[in-house]
């Protein structure tokens, strides 16, 4: 996937003025926030679950190597194969080779953020394969030749009318611009693809070490068809997806559905394990798991370790006012919103994704809703800190910060300058406000600057004889 994080500001500005996007976002935010609130209100122990999940994930991460080996052994034991991919290129090469060996012409895909991360679709298409996304949202953005704009609702940026137009253009049909009309239309198209597919590629929400099973949750059942109908099933997953036992998956599943879509559980929770056995009515002939590191093991040893707890529920972006105003595309890569503001710079570079962690008010709502209690604001601040260490903040900002620090450490100078500034600002005020202030036009373009009265609190206080 093309990295467009450097275009954050122009793309965000464009998004603010896109009426269709704004309509779609307003609707989505209302739905996601309200449904989650309702769902968790019905689970009095929700906070306790979050805490349990945080603790459990940390335990698992501290023994990740162990659980990964156990998982690999179990997958082998049930007749599957595990492939380790160091980075995106490695992962693409492994999957391309598997498809080539299977003589595949068509690949059906379930929703997978890792496959976006490794740029899989482009690579397979370059090999001449027909790649069909089977998740409705993914299917829509694939037709529109766009990347997903949300990690669980890839086409959330589109209105129903836009989707109907898109289908009309590609299918030559005239579907009703209603949810059921669009779903029926997509289902008819996708059915054919499922039967045509030689290889089915899915992601995984969890990988279970004790059984070697992979778990996916969907609301459309497309994942089930993807993984049972094709001859070859390939699971792609980040290495942090492994959990020791079924009970662990259950804990996280309870949090995932409620945090993501406000459901008690998603409509389909599907476990897949190895290829078809003798006597099985269906299932693939080959079963492969591609475990993707792509920087994760490095993350494990550093200040962003907690980010590996992420179960990709999307709650942080649903509750982020900045995401809510601009949508996911402005973030310019696979992972948008608060989790993306931490992850994206780690994947594509602190420099390349400079704006993402900075375009954040640190209001903290993301951290409050995260089901595994990732302290997102602190991690975002930590990314800014790393950018500071690498000298990546704009030179003018660095100079102002350095100067400000020197002044703030010298009270007499600091207060002297402050007294001067408030006197100056007071003379610029008219009716209590300053309408335009050169040097602070970022502020005054959209707001007045309330004018000070001309004396600082400290000077007034001490002048009043409060001095001892």
């Amino acid at each position, binding site marked *: 996937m093309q990295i467009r994080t450097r275009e954050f500001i122009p793309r965000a500005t464009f998004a603010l003025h896109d009426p269709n996007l704004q309509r779609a976002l307003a609707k989505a935010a209302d739905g996601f926030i309200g449904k989650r609130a309702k769902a968790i209100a019905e689970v009095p122990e929700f906070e306790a679950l979050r805490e349990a999940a945080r603790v459990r994930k940390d335990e698992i991460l501290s023994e990740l190597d162990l659980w990964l080996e156990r998982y690999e052994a179990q997958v082998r034991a049930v007749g599957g194969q595990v492939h380790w991919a160091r980075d995106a290129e490695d992962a693409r090469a492994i999957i391309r080779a598997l498809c080539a060996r299977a003589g595949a012409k068509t690949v059906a895909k379930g929703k997978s953020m890792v496959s976006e991360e490794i740029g899989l679709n482009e690579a397979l298409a370059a090999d001449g394969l027909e790649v069909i996304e089977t998740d409705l949202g993914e299917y829509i953005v694939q037709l529109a030749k766009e990347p997903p704009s949300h990690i669980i609702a890839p086409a959330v940026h589109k209105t129903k009318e836009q989707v109907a137009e898109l289908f009309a253009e590609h299918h030559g049909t005239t579907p009703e611009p209603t949810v059921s009309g669009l779903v029926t239309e997509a289902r008819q198209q996708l059915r054919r693809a499922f039967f045509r597919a030689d290889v089915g590629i899915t992601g995984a929400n969890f990988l279970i070490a004790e059984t070697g099973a992979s778990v996916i949750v969907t609301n459309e059942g497309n994942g089930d068809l993807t993984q049972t109908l094709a001859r070859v099933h390939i699971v792609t997953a980040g290495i942090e997806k492994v959990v020791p036992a079924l009970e662990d998956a259950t804990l996280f599943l309870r949090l995932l559905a409620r945090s993501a879509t406000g459901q008690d559980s998603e409509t389909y929770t599907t476990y897949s394990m190895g290829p078809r056995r003798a006597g099985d009515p269906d299932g693939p002939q080959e079963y492969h798991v591609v475990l993707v590191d792509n920087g994760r093991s490095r993350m494990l040893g550093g200040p962003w370790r907690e980010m590996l707890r992420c179960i990709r529920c999307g709650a942080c972006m649903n509750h982020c006012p900045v995401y809510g105003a601009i949508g996911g595309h402005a973030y310019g890569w696979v992972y948008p919103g608060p989790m993306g503001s931490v992850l994206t710079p780690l994947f594509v570079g602190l420099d390349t994704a400079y704006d993402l962690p900075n375009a954040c008010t640190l209001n903290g*709502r993301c951290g409050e809703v995260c089901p595994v209690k990732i302290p997102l604001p602190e991690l975002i601040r930590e990314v800014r800190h790393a950018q500071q260490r690498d000298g990546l903040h704009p030179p003018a900002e660095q100079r102002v910060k350095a100067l400000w620090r020197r002044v703030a450490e010298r009270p007499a100078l600091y207060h002297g300058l402050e007294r001067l500034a408030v006197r100056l600002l007071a003379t610029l005020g008219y009716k209590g406000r300053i309408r335009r202030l050169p040097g602070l036009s970022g502020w005054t373009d959209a707001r007045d600057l309330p004018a000070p009265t001309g004396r600082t609190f400290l000077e007034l206080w001490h002048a009043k004889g409060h001095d001892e």
Partner: protein
Amino acid sequence: MPPDRTGTVGLFATCLMNAMRPNIGFAAARLLEDAGWRVEVPREQTCCGQPAYNGGDEDAARALARRTIAQFEAFDALVAPSGSCLATLKHDYPRLLRDDPLWAGRAQALADKSWELLTFLHERVGPEHIRSRFPHRVTYHDSCSGLRQLGIREAPRALLARVEGLRLVEAEEREVCCGFGGTFSVKYPTLSERLAENKVQRLLATRADVVLGGDLGCLLHLAGRLTRICAPVRVYHTVEVLAGLADGPGIGQS
């Protein structure tokens, strides 16, 4: 109030209050002194360091944290009329200095006796000292750092309930950020503007004629937006109303 329950408060004069709205400091001092607390304002105090900390400059934040601790650790309590600065003192100082054997303990000790003004008035001073009158329909803006880092929700409302004639009308989406975000408002002005506009529309929908809050940063931002769109609403810090010092012009007005 029996004297053994009072003591000396070091008033933290936040940068914005000091420069832009001294009235807030005087209002705070009036209420504290009325209740029998001695109020001192150390001359050598400067900034708590939050802009540096949020801007990624932990070294600078640490240097300013040490200065602030040295200035205030002798008082019985530190009180700041801002949830945002106070959260820095209370949560970030101990974190920033945890690996510094000389300062970790001092940072924690100061954090333990540092209070956001409205919480202090509510829990330590007691609402019975509020004797002001403000016959207006008001709405209250919860600032994010106060709300989420310090859990301030009830205190301002309980205090405002004591004000004669005041009618509090709650806005929708109270938990949503107003888009100030410190340097965010200058670095990403168009985003900040949109969030401000969203918030302002929610506030105006209450048909309140006064907006109150506990953080001057948010209030300057919201007042600036309200005057820019010529909305007939006045903005004050909550303590100005509680102390009966909201008789002058609102923030950004004359």
